């Protein structure tokens, strides 16, 4: 990454292998209490992290800050060496090309087929057509959709749609995969399939951050678990568990 990656931040220097750094980050919307309140967080390259917590505890807000969809009210966020509070508008596209993003509601283009939805991501970053034709079938095979590349989106099950979204997020080979409740609309079998795929992607070196309410999966996978409540991190453990409230 760029030089700024090693820049000093207060007294602490960001280590080489740290891809996400939050220092005392606060995010207030125009109304109500802050959605995030003085959050500090460090994530290393290649980690798999679950973020759990009550509804309204600030998980989506955190994801949006990492995407630079939102700007923090206070504190510093550094992702892959980019200071997201200071980043220039014109640099944002370049920054986002390092991220893969998956949402609960899939957000696919319904008027196009599976192949076109994945190729779309490559078009946007101006990959040559020759490479698109090679990359898209290969990533569709990874998510077990090789046979359905011609299907329209509304001819797919929810699980299949989320796998298309995952393929689209991965085709540009992101350094970090961000998923906000990727299994929120899926049944247990499909949820497991998506989680297993993300684990596989993580094993190939991609840093994966998953927001989820799926207690069973979190407890079974034995990954780092960050628990949030009312805008603060109340628990952050390796091989953590989805702890019960109160």
């Amino acid at each position, binding site marked *: 990454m760029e030089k700024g990656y090693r820049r000093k931040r207060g007294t602490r220097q960001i280590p080489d292998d740290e891809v996400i750094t939050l220092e005392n980050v606060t995010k207030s919307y125009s109304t109500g209490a802050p959605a995030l309140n003085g959050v500090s967080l460090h994530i290393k390259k290649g980690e798999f992290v679950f973020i759990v917590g009550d509804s309204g505890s600030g998980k989506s807000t955190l994801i949006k800050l990492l995407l630079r969809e939102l700007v923090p009210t206070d504190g510093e966020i550094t992702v892959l060496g980019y200071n997201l509070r200071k980043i220039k508008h014109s640099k944002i596209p370049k920054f986002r090309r390092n991220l893969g*993003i998956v949402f609960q509601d899939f957000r696919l283009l319904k*008027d196009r087929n599976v192949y076109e939805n994945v190729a*779309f991501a490559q078009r946007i970053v101006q990959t040559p057509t020759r490479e698109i034709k090679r990359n898209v079938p290969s990533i569709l095979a990874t998510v077990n959709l090789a046979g359905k590349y011609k299907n329209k989106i509304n001819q797919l099950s929810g699980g299949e749609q989320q796998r298309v979204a995952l393929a689209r997020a991965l085709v540009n080979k992101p350094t970090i995969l961000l998923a906000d409740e990727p299994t929120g609309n899926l049944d247990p079998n499909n949820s497991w399939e998506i989680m297993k795929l993300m684990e596989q992607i993580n094993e190939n070196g991609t840093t994966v951050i998953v927001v989820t309410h799926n207690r069973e999966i979190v407890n079974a996978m034995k990954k780092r678990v960050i628990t949030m409540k009312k805008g603060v991190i109340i628990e952050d453990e390796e091989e953590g568990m989805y702890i019960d409230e109160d």
Partner: protein
Amino acid sequence: MRISSFFYTIGQGFKNLGRNKWYTLASIATISACLFLFGLFYSIITNFENVVKTAEEGVSVTVFFNEGTSEEQILAVKSDLEQRAEVREIVYVSADDAWEDFKEEYLGEYADGFTENPLADSANLQIYLNDVSLQGALVTYIESIDVVREVNRSEVTANTLSGLNVLIAYISAGIIIILLLVSIFLISNTVTMGIAVRKDEINIMKYIGATDFFVRAPFVVEGIIIGIIGSIIPLVIIYFVYTNAIAYVVSRFTMLSTLLNFLPVSIVYNKLVPISLAIGIGIGFFGSFTTVRKHLHV
């Protein structure tokens, strides 16, 4: 930009046209209607201007001289007048020429009875002007020359023609400006609709890391295509209307057609095609570019 991205952007521009068909059709129809009116108007104006110009070229001032003025004196006046900017051409008609013309026109063989030129003092200068509006000033000047006996002019025609020219210029400018504003407004509506319909897509594009340019370009391409189609349709229609109308007028009103000298369609189209295309592409580009900028906040 890569070649493949360039073609992708162009392709997306075309696909956008189909994604909101009705608005596309509405914009094309309006631009076409505006440019049709413009083209029709332009054809009529250029023909009218041609008629005016032909008429102007015929407008002349005839100067007669006092009895006994020598040819040298007349030629001196001629070369003096030729220095003036508004003078296009001066024809010297000697007394003998005048008599020859007269004989030919009115007397025929009866002319043999005359041994002397009865029009001895009718030598004159016929002055043709560059700019008929300056005729008054010229006449005043000529009347002040002492050897001049009389100046014949066609003041009414000259004033009417120059007045008409100014009027035509104002009316054309006014109509064209109104048509342009209407078209820009409509294109901008089409693009706004397109953006609303494709809000999710634009959102996804931004998450994936599309540059502002890449998000905007297809909409601008869409606007330009609408502009091009919207200018070609009226050009084709006017072509047929124009050629058929001329053929009809010429065959039905033979007398009129000798009076009015219609311009061939190729001469009119020499300028109308580039102007129409430029206007069409211009409003397509301008309308979509400004609208995208306003609505995307990318």
